[in-house]
């Protein structure tokens, strides 16, 4: 039994979920975790979603439920599960500095991954962590003032959206916070406004204006905005290509809002010094909240990055980029950046877990690769060991945490299980390591 408690997710083919009418279920394919979509499984187990499901959801369910690789491979050759598990255990046992990465998985999968990491002295990092750290570094330095979807839905009169169209990563964001039209208070949908900075407005957004800005200039623009909100007189005429007058005007609008939010997707802040942009946002929120209410809505959680990070945090105390090499946990977001370590050949074995999609496996140079993934795993054949794993919310139940880090939802299976949960595979690798 693991030290982290018992009864991890049930993998005994629980009845597909029945809630609020036939086949209503929760979607694991973005950080919004919509719990109002309808899924139906064909005889072959192909799951089609309908109702309010977005394109990401439809694509995700059909991709992960499609026929494909469903037998373990050792160096590209079919193998039985026991052999594959033993081979994986052997690789990890021999490794001097293994990486457990990818980590697109649910709570149960992450629990098992951490038990394994603890046993084999691995470094743990998530495929999305470079995006996540754009937020985290500012957060750990200053903290944050944030809010959640229901608050936004009922209170937000001004959206300031930074460097993302929102829709391409979180298709239903505006639908879910604005579309209902009805709010708890006297706020009407018609009262809402949005400003898109450095991005085009997405469908479903409230009446919007756009402030064009090259993405790599966002840190300067946001810093100037923060300074203006704090009342500083800046000599510069522009920040990036945006005139200071425009920035001062936005500052005034934000100060006048009753319950504004700044929304961004760290994944879209893909330029140098993005953390400075986030830091400036945190700074201006501190100033704004001296006189009004204004909060951050950092959009994330895709590929379960927030879920996996939360489990690591609560079990160990540190977020990603934590190493168990010495036997004790050691956190350093630069030192244990898996991409940096791989590039510098500091890793000599990789276990890559991708249960929700096919997260691209980074170049592992000559380090052996253990791949735990779904039916479309592109790297399966070049992996030293490939073991197919199920998708939470499809093959098995699971838990995931939503973009706002507060709501966590249960994903019930939407078809009879065809692949084993990652948690189960990882636990058997841990077991096998005991006998190495």
């Amino acid at each position, binding site marked *: *039994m693991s*030290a*982290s*408690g018992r*009864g*991890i*997710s*049930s993998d005994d083919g629980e009845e597909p979920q029945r*809630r*609020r009418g036939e086949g209503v279920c929760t979607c694991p394919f973005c950080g919004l975790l919509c*719990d*109002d979509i309808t899924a139906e499984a064909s005889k072959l187990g192909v799951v089609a979603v309908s109702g309010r499901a977005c394109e990401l959801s439809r694509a995700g369910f059909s991709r992960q439920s499609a026929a494909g690789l469903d037998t373990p491979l050792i160096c590209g050759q079919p193998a039985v599960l026991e052999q594959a598990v033993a081979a994986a255990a052997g690789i990890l046992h021999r490794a001097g500095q293994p990486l457990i990465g990818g980590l697109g998985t649910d709570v149960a999968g992450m*629990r098992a991954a951490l*038990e394994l990491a*603890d*046993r084999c002295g691995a470094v743990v990092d998530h495929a999305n962590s470079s995006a996540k750290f754009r937020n985290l570094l500012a*957060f*750990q*330095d200053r*903290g*944050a*003032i*944030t809010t*959640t*979807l*229901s*608050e936004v*839905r*009922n*209170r937000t009169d001004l959206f300031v959206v930074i460097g993302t169209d929102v829709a391409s990563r979180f298709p239903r964001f505006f639908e*879910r*916070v604005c579309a209902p039209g*009805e709010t*708890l208070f006297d706020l009407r949908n018609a009262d809402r406004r949005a400003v898109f900075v450095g991005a085009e407005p997405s469908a479903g957004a409230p009446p919007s204006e756009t402030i064009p800005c090259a993405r790599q200039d966002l840190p300067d623009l946001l810093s100037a905005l923060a300074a203006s909100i704090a009342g500083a007189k800046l000599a510069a005429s522009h920040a990036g290509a945006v005139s200071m007058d425009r920035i001062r005007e936005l500052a005034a609008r934000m100060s006048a809002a009753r*319950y504004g939010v700044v929304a961004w997707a760290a994944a879209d802040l893909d330029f140098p010094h993005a953390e400075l942009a986030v830091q400036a946002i945190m700074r201006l929120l501190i100033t704004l*909240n001296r006189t*009004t*209410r204004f909060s951050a809505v950092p959009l994330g959680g895709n590929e379960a990055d927030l879920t996996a990070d*939360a*489990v690591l*945090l*609560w*079990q*160990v*105390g*540190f977020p990603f980029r934590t190493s*168990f090499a010495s*036997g*004790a*946990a050691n*956190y350093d977001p630069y030192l244990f950046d898996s991409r940096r370590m791989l590039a510098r050949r500091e890793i000599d074995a990789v276990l890559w877990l991708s249960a929700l999609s096919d997260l691209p496996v980074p170049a592992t140079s000559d380090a052996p690769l253990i791949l735990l993934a779904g039916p479309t795993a592109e790297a399966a054949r070049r992996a030293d060991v490939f073991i197919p794993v199920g998708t939470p919310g499809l093959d098995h139940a699971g*838990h995931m*945490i939503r973009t*706002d*880090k*507060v*709501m*966590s*939802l*249960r994903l019930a299976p939407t078809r009879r299980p065809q692949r084993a949960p990652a948690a189960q595979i990882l636990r058997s690798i841990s077991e096998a390591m005991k006998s190495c």
Partner: protein
Amino acid sequence: MLSVLSGGRVIDPANGVDDQVRDIYVQDGRIIDPPQDAARAHRIDIAGRVVMAGAIDMHTHIGGGKVNLARLMLPEDHRGHARARTELTRASCGRAAPGTLQTGYRYAEMGYTACFEPAMLPVNARQAHLELGDTPIVDKGCYAMLGNDDYFLRQLAEGAEQARINDYVGWILDCTQSIAIKVVNAGGISAFKFNLRQLDVDQEHPYYRVTPRRVLQVLSRAVHDLGVPHGLHVHGSNLGVAGNVESTLATIAAAEGLPIHLTHIQFHSYGREGDRKFSSAAARIAEAVNANPNVSCDVGQIMFGQTVTASGDNMAQHRNADLGSPRKSVVMDIECDAGCGVVPFRYRDQSFVNALQWAIGLEIFLLVRDPWRIFLTTDHPNGAPFTSYPHLIRLLTDRSFRNDMFQKLNPEAQAASTLGSLTREYSLYEIAILTRAAPARTLGLADRGHLGAGAAADIVVYREDADRERMFATPEYVFKDGELIVRDGRLVKITSGRVHAVKPGYDRSIEAHVADYFERFQSISAASMRISADELCECGSGLIVHDCRKGAA
């Protein structure tokens, strides 16, 4: 298997046993009466040792979103407090906001066998249970936070009848697998979302026009009507504000005789006298507690050093953010349900305010007469990490030690406190009440907190030591449900605890109304709120349901 702890000095206040030498028989995880075939029992000789039931921390923030935010914010604090893996235990970190593994291990090493998370947001219940499921060995339980959620306030504003409220409260307890109801800064967290920065007990909520007093009345009534053993768990208004003694006394009055529990009361016992406009109101508070048998409290003692404050009271936390050290903070509005705020804090013994806070906590401990109505807490981690309990026990049981500590503090604070003149010293029997018998009784854990036949075999054996801090820091034996898990302060077995909850009866027809509300205003369906007993197992914990008070509605 049958075993017997033989020859120990038993201290078991729930059964009126004060330091009597008795044998304790354990079979299948339970304490039993001496059986006929006692001879075959596996004998553990503990002659001369002090035996108590497993300790129960009835107010400790160990799981849920705000704790995870605190963990995330304090890599600096974790670094110094890393626990390396062993063949038995896993690596984990932290002191102020430890990882769940560290939390379970440390509590068990200190002889604690049950811990209660007192501020679980209903919308965050699932994560709280996931975290508690990863907290080994100890049993857990949660208090669901109400009183700032818009459903409740809306019902109140619309003048819904008490019975309706009761059903909603029952539904919340049921679907979040909780054991009690807590209210935090009644109405204040919601008011903060309307940009109010303070809300007094008789001040109207800016939108719903209801007062905190009303919220307290209705919720304490609901908890009482439903027969929930633990009275309404109240985190008062104006936490940490000089002069908040008035709000605290008003809160006691608002209960109108119904059972309420005032939590971390130290933070609510401040006057406004003196040059610094900050003074101890411990005497007035203790007097009120002594005079109102319906009131119980836990202290929330502070200790000096680095910790982190994590609270649902984001109104107060936003107020305190600039006092934080290291200077960073998280303030969060949450799902039209509540909020949370996290501010790292460093209490300094040469700071007038901090030193006086320390003294106020101890004054309350020593001035409240009935040990059954006061509980030993630091409001972990808000006053100090739970690992400081043995030190706190020594402060309570050893007057000269207490005074030595007192004399090291900021001199002005010493002058402003009566602590030096308080001669009371807690006995081991009283300590056992504060840390075992009373918490079990107030929470309705019939089979915990005592050593009588039928009780779960959560048993702690201490070596007698005049230095109570040393004595309570490393028990010689700790048994959880009959299994030996700690020997000489070292873990020898890792088990997983269960979750204690209550299931009061309520009219299920409320669910349709709640479902409609969620459909119209919330970001998830009401169905997604429900955590079944099976799901609780997925989270990592079995469920123990305790009876509600007989004769309740």
